[in-house]
């Protein structure tokens, strides 16, 4: 049997980057922008944080680090990096009306290249003999859990053993769900994604909503990258380690039928499925089974896609204008 007390925290830690990514992508998609650049954005969010903390750690070499600064600097760098990615995407698709799919894919390629370039440069600067940068001091601040978590047995282990970014992800997801459902801003955002022409005629500034939603979405997704490096990976950046989590986050958006509150549990589920292969006894003879288990999150997404399209409930469908750009005077 799987050891649940060991497995669940691992699943949650796997799930947090996905939660950030899918929540950010959901906000973006609600505005009608299909941002396939999310893997790139998360990558940039991660490396930007790494760059910030790398130079801060360097500047404090030997001396004591300020805890607040150690958190704020990578956080601000990460947000700024992914904000720039969001602005770039919005500028290309909203202002210049470039094709969203092409732009998104290009941004993923760009983001990963950007990350690997600076990751490689930092490794060179630090002169490390392994191809990675270890920011264990900063990571210590990020992954610090509540002091009494350790004394609460399995409960503490499952619910309280995470760094603050994990809880922030849950709060952001809940907040986003509330904004979608109960505020005018959410209503307007949904209408922009459903039918920009209608929203425009109703006096909603479509361009503003698309820009803001995409940028906020990217910033949230970028935090997923930051969490991954600083907390999950214990501050160790190595190129390409982030893997296909960005794509998984996009798949998760479909899985959650565009509802960030469903996203909380589903990302943990996805996180669990993502690492399930490590916990299932396959033995050395059947390594191929491990590869099959790795497919689980994608298979589950396909099943959800089939079920929702069979039920054909209008509320469960993607925003109607998803993937198309809006131009008011087009006839």
């Amino acid at each position, binding site marked *: 049997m799987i050891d649940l007390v060991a497995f669940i925290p691992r699943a949650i830690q796997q799930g947090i980057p996905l939660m950030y990514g899918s929540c950010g992508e959901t906000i973006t998609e609600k505005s009608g922008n299909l941002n396939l650049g999310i893997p790139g954005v998360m990558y940039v969010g991660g490396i930007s944080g790494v760059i910030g903390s790398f130079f801060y750690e360097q500047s404090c070499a030997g001396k004591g680090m300020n805890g607040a600064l150690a958190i704020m600097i990578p956080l601000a760098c990460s947000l700024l990096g992914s904000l720039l990615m969001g602005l770039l995407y919005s500028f290309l698709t909203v202002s210049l009306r470039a094709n969203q799919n092409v732009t998104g894919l290009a941004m993923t390629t760009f983001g990963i290249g950007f990350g690997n370039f600076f990751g490689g440069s930092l490794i060179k600067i630090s002169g490390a003999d392994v191809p990675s940068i270890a920011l264990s001091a900063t990571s210590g601040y990020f992954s610090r859990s509540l002091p009494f978590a350790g004394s609460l047995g399995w409960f503490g282990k499952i619910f309280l053993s995470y760094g603050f970014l994990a809880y922030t992800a849950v709060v952001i997801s809940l907040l986003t769900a509330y904004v979608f459902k109960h505020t005018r801003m959410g209503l307007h955002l949904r209408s922009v994604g459903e*039918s920009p022409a209608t929203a425009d005629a*109703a006096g909603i500034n479509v361009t503003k909503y698309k820009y803001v939603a995409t940028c906020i979405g990217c910033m949230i997704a970028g935090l997923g990258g930051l969490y991954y490096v600083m907390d999950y990976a214990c501050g160790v950046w190595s190129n390409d380690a982030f893997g296909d989590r960005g794509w998984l986050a996009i798949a998760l958006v479909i899985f959650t039928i565009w509802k960030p509150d469903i996203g909380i549990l589903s990302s943990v589920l996805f996180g669990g499925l993502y690492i399930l292969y490590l916990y299932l006894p396959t033995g050395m003879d059947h390594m191929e089974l491990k590869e099959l288990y790795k497919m689980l999150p994608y298979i589950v997404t396909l099943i959800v896609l089939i079920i929702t399209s069979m039920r054909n409930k209008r509320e469960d469908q993607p925003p109607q204008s998803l993937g198309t750009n809006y131009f008011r005077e087009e006839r």
Partner: protein
Amino acid sequence: MSEAAVSFRRVTKTFGSVIANSNINLDIKKGEILSLLGENGSGKTTLMNMLAGIYYPDSGQIYINDEPVIIKSPKDAFDLGIGMVHQHFKLIDVLTTAENIVLGLEGRLNLKDTEKKIKEICDKYGFEVDPQKKIYDLSVSEKQTVEIVKVLYRGAEILILDEPTAVLTPQETEKLFKVMRNMKADGKSIIIITHKLHEVKAISDRVAILRKGEFIGDMITSESNEEQMTQMMVARHLFLNIDRKKPVNVKPRIEVKGLTVKDPAGIYKLKDVSFTANSGEVLGIAGISGCGQKELLESIAGLQKVESGSVLYKPDDKEPVDLIGKDPRQIHEMGISLSFVPEDRLGMGLVGNMDLADNMMLRSFRSGKSKLFTDRKTPRELAKTVVRDLEVITPSIETPVRRLSGGNVQKVLLGREISSHPKVLMTAYAVRGLDINSSYTIYDLINKQKEGGTAVIYVGEDLDVLLELADRILVLCDGEVSGIVDAETTDKNTLGLLMTKKGGAA
């Protein structure tokens, strides 16, 4: 009562090289219903879109209550008390009625208060609206009501209705007119864009006429007649009578027997429909929209899954064949030339992003130069012929079809379909949204086809036209044939009765 609520002064708007409005001077008075009349592409909607903030004029000035105003966005228009109900509803399907009504407003979202206010408006003017219903559950006329309530909710004093009756039944139209009169009595100014002259007469105080983007003139409705309006609209005299020749060489061409169609939800769309369409004859099909007209035509064209029944095609010299269970390609390959001009022109008939020539090719791409290469030359020639013969207004034959106006799109589609000299021609709402001039071109084309021996099936909504164009009229009511009548000896009342009464003929 006589001061102007809205004044346009020398307003001009161009789209690229096309002048949509040039130098328009027009006043809309307080508390009046003004009809805006004009052919398709005469710039009515563009002019009103400028008032509603969708477009911004290139030059000229708009005045509201004699104050010069700048309307840059729909929001500015709302703030000035202007509300427009567009021809294509601007509603969001997955939201509720109440959510749609408050869309774009500011302040805290309080749907309870909203619902209360909606009810007040409904009671005041005589609407019926369920604020909690989702838009996708509403009928067309209910959606329109939501649009009007939305505009009133924002406190609009000036209402613009863009062809509101195009989608309504006569009864629903009457209801709408009643509400409009209530709003007028409340001091609101209403502008109604319409093609239907009898509606202009029925509802408006004054009528303003646009032609090719220019303001031609206005007149008091009660002091003018339909003849005058038409003349101002088209500038040349039109014969209002459709020239209908006696059918000659009549032979059964399509024989439909016991056709039954169910929709995916299991509801009968057609129930035991039987009739014969003859060559050299126009068979009109009348009925309230959604009574199975679409399913009937699509069953014959091979696009509809049929529950039971048969559609026999009877060639002159061969044995009849059943078309049921065959797709359009199979029907085509059997050598049956059947043309279908669907209701959804840009959705089913033409590809909006392709140019005229390529759209012509949609019919002929299989008969290319060789197995590998297509023949582009013949479609190009055909496109040129269609443009010339049917007077299609287009910058060139390389223009994407979606850029053409509704009438021209229809001409392109019909031109392509009749170019193959079909034995059977089916049209659904061929003149919907078209101005009088284009409509007559279409009627002419249909009559020519009939004289050439084609069996024409014409689904129409304007009963006057059906009575003048068709030889026989089949009336559908709720998917059942409620009667087949001779168009020459019947009248509108009989048709109206058949349309609303199941099995009215029996």
